């Protein structure tokens, strides 16, 4: 009975929730559950990677020499940096620093764009080197077949990751717009917080992709052969 509806119903409280607290907790839980789903989505790719890496370890190590560790490393730094700016954006939303919020969101966008740009450069190198399975692929040596598997997985995994970045970028445009209009307050900024969770998740995926794809063959840099 004790319904709280009419007493204090802020504009941003949807009709079917009783309290702001309930709405905030619901949206946060919803986001976390969504991320759990994302873990399993990428999990399928990691499983495929695990299976073939364990079967064709040598070919994978050799094929990974064709990835650019420097660019990959720079991208890792950029992406972790963007996670920091995103975390700071959430901080500003929590503490009501409206202009800084916009600034940090823009910084996150910029770093995200830089990441995607470097990724595009890497993809282009692969295209020039004929290392894109299904489009242009020619790989020397006896491990060609299994190297193709490596590159298939490389493109599937980084491609899915990049797609998530692109979606994140689109969402950021929308968030920046809302933030400029001052839509977010210390009481109501679920969108910023939830987007932050999403962005950090994308960062975490990369934290695993980087060593698994770029670093596995470094220690025998002499290259291939077995």
């Amino acid at each position, binding site marked *: 009975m004790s319904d709280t509806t009419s007493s204090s119903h802020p504009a941003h409280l949807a009709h079917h929730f009783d309290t702001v607290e309930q709405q905030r907790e619901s949206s946060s839980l919803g986001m976390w559950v969504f991320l759990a789903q994302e873990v399993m989505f990428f999990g399928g790719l990691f499983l495929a990677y695990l*299976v073939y890496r364990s079967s064709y*370890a*040598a*070919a994978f190590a050799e094929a990974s020499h064709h990835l650019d560790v420097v660019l990959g490393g720079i991208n890792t730094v950029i992406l972790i940096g963007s996670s920091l700016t995103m975390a700071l954006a959430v901080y500003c939303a929590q503490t009501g620093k409206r202009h800084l919020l916009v600034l940090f969101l823009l910084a996150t966008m910029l770093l995200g764009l830089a990441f995607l740009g470097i990724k595009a450069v890497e993809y282009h190198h692969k295209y020039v080197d004929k290392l894109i399975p299904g489009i242009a692929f020619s790989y020397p*040596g*006896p*491990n060609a077949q*299994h190297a193709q598997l490596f590159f298939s997985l490389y493109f599937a995994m980084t491609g899915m990751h990049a797609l998530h970045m692109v979606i994140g970028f689109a969402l950021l445009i929308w968030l920046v717009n809302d933030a400029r209009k001052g839509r977010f307050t210390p009481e109501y900024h679920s969108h910023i917080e939830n987007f932050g969770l999403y962005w950090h998740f994308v960062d975490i995926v990369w934290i695993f992709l980087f060593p698994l794809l770029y670093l596995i063959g470094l220690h025998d840099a002499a290259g291939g*052969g*077995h």
Partner: protein
Amino acid sequence: MFSGFPLFPEQASSVAADVDNLYFFLLAITAFFSTLIAGLVIYFAIRYRRRSEVELPEPITGSTKLETLWTVIPAIIVMVIFAWSAKVFLSLHRAPADATPIYVVGKQWMWKLQHLEGQREINELHVPVGRSVKLIMTSEDVIHSFYVPAFRVKADVLPGRYTSIWFKATKPGEYHLFCAEYCGTKHSGMIGRVVAMEPGAYETWLGGGPREQSMTARGEFLFQSFSCNTCHRSDGKGRGPALEGIFGKTVDLQNGQKVAVDDNYLRESILAPASKVLAGYQPVMPAFQGLVNEEALAQLLAYIKSLAPQAARLPGSTPSHEAGSERQNSKP
């Protein structure tokens, strides 16, 4: 057997009775529990039918004793079934060491079979009664499944690797051979028959027909025409390891791992030799992927497996525990 209105398949192999006994046991359990539940539901429904709109049933919320009972009893029953079925499965899975190999290739939509003696058949398999036969199977295209209901055996036939089944026919006759894994347009036409014959009749059948070279002989011919013998010398001084007696051993690889030399390892080592190179050798062998077809590959395997052990020693080789007989499952 191709007519009438059967309710139960013929038992024509040594394992059929074991499988059927398990089946009858499970049927009995199913019959008992479905009758019990249906009986109780019907009895309660009649006995406690609503007699008046205002009646109030006695409140009963549950009974931990009963819950324990109907948790523990099913648990015990399923564990019994598990143990029993695992035992039957392992006997289906482990071929006797003396089983005669027959090589099977599935393709859309036919079965091609090769006997060691050289006979080749299509959609028909002749086997002797009373002798264990092991089918070493692969596919040229999609996944098929070799299924002989009367023998109660089945295994998927995959492209790119070998799988196997074994059986010992116990009753002469003709039995259905089905492809059980959906494989495209004429899936239901990928059928044939297995003819189980008395040993005498089987020998006659083997002797009849056009004179064929044995698989080993053809394999030896291929071995030489591909010049395998220039590197895989029997004295162990070639660029590749000597192959005499290698089948069934466990060997050390260059990367420190160990691998059992079974049909699938030999297959991979011919088609993509760089994947798992023996310790002490260089990856210099060319890949034969696309150069040998499945039948020729089977002949090469038959030849390599026929090579008797020699004095030439492999680095770090040890005899394997099992004779590599049922190792048809391997890495992708």
